[in-house]
C-alpha cells in the first residue's frame, strides 16, 4: 500500500526537481510567478548584472497595484502618484516586462488589479500549481488547491532566472472548521477567530490545509479570504482542496484550460485531496458555531475578539503597549468605539462579494458624518461588475468614496493614508502599528462589519443593525 499523502505532500512531490538532502534543500519547480512593482526591480537588476534572462517569461505575469493611485488622472492627464519614486517603480516594471516579453496588466488594462485578485479571476490560478510572488499574501491562491507562497526579492530573481526555488519542506497543519456560520458572520470572521485561537505564530513552519464542512460550504471568494490570512498565523501557505465550487469558478475564466482540456484537467484536479488516512504534523479543530462578527483590538491580527466582547486585560507589556497605541482601555466594550475611517478593499476583502456585502448594509443608509469611508475594488473586473450592479451608486449615495482598483490603504504607499491617531476599521489583513500610515490605528474586520461601523460612526454589530431594519 502506498503511504497516504496529504494534499500538500502531493503538491510538493509533483514539483521536486532535485530532492532535499541533509546538506541541501530541495530544488522546487514553480509553475506560475506573479510579479508586482514593489518587490521586483532589485531582482531584475540582479539578472541584468549577471547577464541572465528570465527562463520562462510565459509562466511570469505582472500587474501594477501597490504604488498606483486610486484617484483618476487630473486635468493635465497625469495620475496623482504619491511620489516620483512610486512612478519610477511603475516605469521600471513596464520597462522590465517589455524587455523580457513578460505579460503585464498595465494601467488602463481591463485585467489589472491587486495581484492576488487578478490571477484567480483570470483563471491563471489553478489547482495543482506551485505559485509564488514577492508578496506574503500569495497564500491567497491556496484556496484553489495550489501550493502558493510569498518570497523575497532575491528569490524573485531565482525564479526569474531558473523557474525554481531552494526550499526545505515545511510541516503540515490541518485546521478543520465545522458547522454553519451564523447571521452576519463571514469568512473574515472565521479566519480572524482562527488566528485568535492559534496565535500569529501558530502556523510558523507549516502549510495549513483548511478543511471541514464550513470550508466546503464556502464560496471561492470566502476561501480566498481565509487562505489570504494564513500568513497572518505565520504559515508558509494555506490550502483548500479543490471541489465543484473551484471548478465552477474556473469554468468561467479565460486562462483556465477550455472545453475538453478543462474536463481532462478536472479529472486530474479531483485527485488533489488529502488521502483519508493521511497524517498531518498537527491538527486543530474549530467550531464555527462559536464564531461571531470579530474584530482586532491590538497591533497584530491575533488580537481577535467578538464584537460583543470587551477589550481584554493585557497579559504582558507588549499587549499593554498595543492597547496604549490603540487608545483602547482594558475592560471597555469594543462596540461603541468611535471610528474615523472605514476602508473596504485589499486582497483579503476587495472582491465582488465583499462589495455586495457593503452595498447591502449601505443601501438606504448614510455614512456617519464623522467617518471617511473608502471603497476600493480589488481589480478592474471587480469594479466593472460592481458598477454593473449599481454598487458604486449605492456607495456614493451613502457618502463614501468609490475609488480605482489597487492596494490603497491596505499598505498606504500610494498616498491613501489614515492620518496619525485616527482609528480605522479596515477589511485588510494587517493592523500593525503604522501599517495604514504613521500613527494610524487599525481594527481589522469583515466587509459587513466595516460597513456597519461606517453607518454607526463607531464599532457596531452588523447583526443588530440588520435586525433593527427587519423590525422596522
Amino acid at each position, binding site marked *: 500500500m502506498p503511504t497516504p499523502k496529504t494534499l500538500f505532500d502531493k503538491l510538493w512531490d509533483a514539483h521536486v526537481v532535485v530532492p532535499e538532502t541533509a546538506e541541501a534543500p530541495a530544488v522546487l519547480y514553480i509553475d506560475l510567478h506573479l510579479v508586482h512593482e514593489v518587490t521586483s*526591480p532589485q531582482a531584475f537588476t540582479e539578472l541584468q548584472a549577471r547577464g541572465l534572462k528570465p527562463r520562462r517569461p510565459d509562466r511570469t505575469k505582472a500587474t501594477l497595484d501597490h504604488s498606483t493611485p486610486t484617484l483618476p488622472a487630473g486635468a493635465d492627464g497625469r495620475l496623482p502618484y504619491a511620489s516620483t519614486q512610486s512612478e519610477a517603480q511603475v516605469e521600471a516594471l513596464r520597462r522590465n516586462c517589455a524587455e523580457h516579453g513578460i505579460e503585464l496588466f498595465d494601467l488602463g488594462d481591463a485585467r489589472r488589479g491587486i495581484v492576488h485578485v487578478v490571477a484567480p479571476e483570470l483563471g491563471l490560478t489553478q489547482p*495543482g500549481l506551485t505559485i509564488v510572488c514577492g508578496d506574503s499574501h500569495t497564500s491567497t491562491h491556496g484556496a484553489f488547491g495550489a501550493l502558493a507562497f510569498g518570497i523575497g526579492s532575491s528569490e524573485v*530573481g531565482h525564479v526569474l532566472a531558473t523557474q525554481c526555488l531552494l526550499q526545505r519542506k515545511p510541516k503540515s497543519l490541518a485546521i478543520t472548521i465545522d458547522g454553519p456560520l451564523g447571521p452576519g458572520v463571514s469568512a473574515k470572521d472565521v479566519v480572524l477567530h482562527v488566528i485568535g485561537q492559534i496565535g*500569529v505564530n501558530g502556523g510558523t513552519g507549516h502549510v495549513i490545509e483548511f478543511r471541514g464542512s464550513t470550508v466546503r460550504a464556502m464560496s471561492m471568494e470566502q476561501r480566498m479570504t481565509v487562505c489570504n490570512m494564513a500568513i497572518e498565523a505565520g504559515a508558509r501557505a494555506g490550502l483548500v482542496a479543490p471541489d465543484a465550487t473551484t471548478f465552477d469558478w474556473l469554468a468561467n475564466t479565460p*486562462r483556465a484550460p477550455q472545453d475538453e482540456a478543462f474536463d481532462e*484537467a478536472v479529472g486530474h484536479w479531483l485527485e488533489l485531496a488529502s488521502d483519508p488516512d493521511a497524517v498531518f504534523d498537527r491538527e486543530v479543530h474549530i467550531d464555527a458555531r462559536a464564531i461571531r462578527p470579530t474584530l482586532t483590538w491590538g497591533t497584530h491580527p491575533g488580537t481577535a475578539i467578538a464584537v460583543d466582547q470587551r477589550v481584554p486585560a493585557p497579559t504582558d507589556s507588549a499587549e499593554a503597549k498595543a492597547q496604549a497605541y490603540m487608545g483602547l482601555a482594558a475592560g471597555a466594550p469594543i462596540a461603541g468605539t468611535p471610528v474615523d475611517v472605514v476602508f473596504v478593499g485589499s486582497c483579503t476583502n476587495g472582491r465582488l462579494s465583499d462589495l455586495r456585502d457593503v452595498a447591502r448594509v449601505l443601501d438606504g443608509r448614510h455614512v456617519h458624518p464623522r467617518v471617511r469611508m473608502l471603497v476600493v475594488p480589488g481589480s478592474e473586473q471587480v469594479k466593472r461588475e460592481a458598477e454593473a450592479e449599481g454598487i458604486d451608486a449605492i456607495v456614493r449615495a451613502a457618502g463614501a468614496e468609490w475609488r480605482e482598483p489597487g492596494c490603497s490603504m491596505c499598505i498606504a504607499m500610494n498616498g491613501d493614508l489614515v492620518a*496619525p491617531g485616527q482609528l480605522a476599521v479596515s477589511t485588510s489583513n494587517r493592523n*500593525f502599528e503604522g501599517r495604514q500610515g504613521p500613527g494610524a490605528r487599525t481594527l481589522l474586520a469583515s466587509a459587513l462589519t466595516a460597513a456597519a461601523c461606517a453607518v454607526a460612526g463607531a464599532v457596531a454589530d452588523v447583526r443588530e443593525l440588520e435586525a433593527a431594519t427587519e423590525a422596522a
Partner: protein
Amino acid sequence: MSTAIRSIRSASMVLAQANIDTDRIIPARFLSTTTRTGLGKHAFADWRKKSDGSEDPDFVFNLPENVGRAILIAGRNFGCGSSREHAPWALTDAGLRAVISSQVADIFRANALKNGLVPVVLDEDVVQGLMQRPDDELEIDIAAGELRTPSGAVHVFPLDAFARTCLLEGVDELGYLLARDADITRYESSRTPEFRHGL
C-alpha cells in the same frame, strides 16, 4: 555573490518586544525604491523618530553606547508580516549581522540568510537572559552553530546545513540553482499532462 562569514563578535541592542513585524522594521513608505541600498537610515523609522520628526534619543538604535553593535536581541516571532526583503536590507545597512530571538518568521529568516544576516534562534529563557546583559560581547560561531557568552556559557542554535555552508563559503544560491540547469530542463520535459497546459 555574498561574502563569507565565519563568526560575529559584538555587544547587543535589545528590543524586548514580541511580534516585531516587517512594517516596524521598514515602513511601507520606504519601499518605493528600486535599489537594495540606503535603507539603514529608515530601519525602525517610526520608533527611532519622535512624532515631531526629531531623533528619539532613548530608542536603542540612537543610544551612543550602541553605535557599531552588530547583534539585535528581540522578542518572540521577529520579522512576522510581509515578505519585503527590504527588512533585512535595512537591518544589514544599519550594521546588524545577527538577530537573536526565540522564533523568527519563515520568510524573514530566508531573506535574512540571503543577505548575511544570521538568525540565531534560542529558547525564550535564554533570550530573556541575554537581554539582561546587552553589554556582554557575544560570539556567534557559524561553523559550530554556537553562541558563546563572556561568562563561558555556550548555546547551540539550529542552522540548516545548507545555510551554514552558504554563510561560511559565501555560496550564492542563484549560482547553485543555475548549475542545476540540466535537472530543471529534464523536469520540464517530463511533466505530467495536468501541469503542462498553458497559462
